[in-house]
């Protein structure tokens, strides 16, 4: 079902984790649909993404697209990161099954959401960046067992 690259990124996800006091954090997706991605960016004064981490709740494709997206933005400046589309993420993974294309969209949205957070915190305007749709979950309490 998945390409070797997808399986590789699923089995060995790059950049999993959190960044304390991150420059920007973006969380997208919806637990109801079974996918949530959170991306942390560490951006320096030259607007270069020095470090990036992610956490994902979701299927194999969701994990692999988040992992690949973090690889693609690492070391790029903010404008370059803006250019990374879901298509680029998919191509870098040698493709996704049609039912999983939404996972790559989520990865793109997660990057944008983290960049938006960074821009807001720093009073910067990033060209072409729009406020992320927030269908998240902040006050949703999971039931405990």
């Amino acid at each position, binding site marked *: 079902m998945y390409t070797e690259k997808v*399986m590789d990124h*699923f*089995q060995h*996800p790059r950049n*999993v984790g*959190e960044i304390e006091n991150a420059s920007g954090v973006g*969380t997208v997706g919806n*637990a*109801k*649909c*079974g*996918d*949530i*991605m*959170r991306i942390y960016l560490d951006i320096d004064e030259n607007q270069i993404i020095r470090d990036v981490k*992610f*956490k*994902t*709740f*979701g*299927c*194999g494709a*969701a*994990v692999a697209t988040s992992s690949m997206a973090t690889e693609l933005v690492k070391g790029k400046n903010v404008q370059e990161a803006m250019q990374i589309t879901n298509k680029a993420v998919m191509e870098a993974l040698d493709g996704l099954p049609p*039912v999983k294309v939404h996972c790559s969209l989520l990865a793109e949205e997660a990057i944008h959401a983290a960049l938006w957070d960074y821009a807001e915190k720093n009073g910067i305007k990033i060209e072409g960046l729009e406020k992320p749709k927030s269908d998240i979950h902040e006050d949703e*309490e*999971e*039931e*405990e*067992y």
Partner: protein
Amino acid sequence: MGKLIYLDNAATTKTSPEVVEAMLPYFTEHYGNPSSVYGFAAANKEVITSQREIIAGVLGAKDNEIYFTAGGTESDNWALIATAEAYAAKGKHIITSKIEHHAILHTCEYLQRQGYEVTYLDVDENGLVDPKAVEAAIRPDTILISVMFANNEIGTIQPIAEIGKIAHDHGVLFHTDAVQAFAQIPINVDECNIDMLSASGHKLNGPKGIGFLYIRKGVKIRSFIHGGAQERRRRAGTENVPGIVGLGKAVELAAASMRERMERESRLRDHLISRIESEIPYCRLNGDRVKRLPNNVNFSFQFVEGESLLIMLDMKGICASSGSACTSGSLDPSHVLLAIGLPHEIAHGSLRVTLGADTTEEDLDYVVDCLKEIVAQLRKMSPLYEDFVRRQEKKNTK
């Protein structure tokens, strides 16, 4: 890959070697059409009858009440659609439950489009249908009640005898989808007042593509597949002789070993359940703890997603299944898990493990060891778990 641990026996089972051996001559030697006149072929007619007798014996039925079909799905379609047509003059109302297999639910939706009304009964948090709710749903125009014997995802065994009695007392026909239960647990069609029962060969170490529908004598049911005079003119088409022989053999073997298997599988099942519950935090057993198929274990693991879990288990050589959306082919998780009241995100994190004749305690111990590691690994990368831990910390500092 190394060892394969197959724990998806509710999806399908390995065809047992005795079954394959019994079937083979019916491809190569006794290939005649049972409807032919010459002795070479006509002997196959008797072979079919003797398989019917084996199956009827297990259910406490008569052999002319067993009709061979291409499997459980066809049996369900036939039972519902042909009964609905035959009894349309009496009424157009059918009662079923929300946790039926899609072979029932999608057939009911089809009938709704044909002008029938269907009541889908709720189940409780363990997946049980309340017989009182069945009784309350019966109307003067109710023609059929269809409730599954045991659920394929969560293993819950329904109070079939009670529901059957209610149906009987109200003069309503009662069908049960027993695909998961037949030859796994005792079923007697008279004791349970069952008028129709669906079953399938490949769930009990028999071949795929063969099943049957039990139809009590006297039930008006129309032909569903039209053509020749096979199956008392009710189900046309040249009989799948090798399949029927394989099914008969599988039923014979399953019935002979049923008590011993039930005892063995229940013990293994409870071992697996107790190890998971004591060693993996934030999990929930889905389905009834007691009224449960001996081979079914279904858990939800909070903060993780089912498909990821399955792929990681697969990498360890373990075959299992999940009710997550990613494995159901839609965006919604399993309708069964939602019907027992699980929130979406917890339904997405479900895992079904179904034991079989080859399953050993050692296999299950290996599964728990892998599962502990995998769940911990997935939680480590889950934003839901991160949020949960933060909330716990906040609570503790308050």
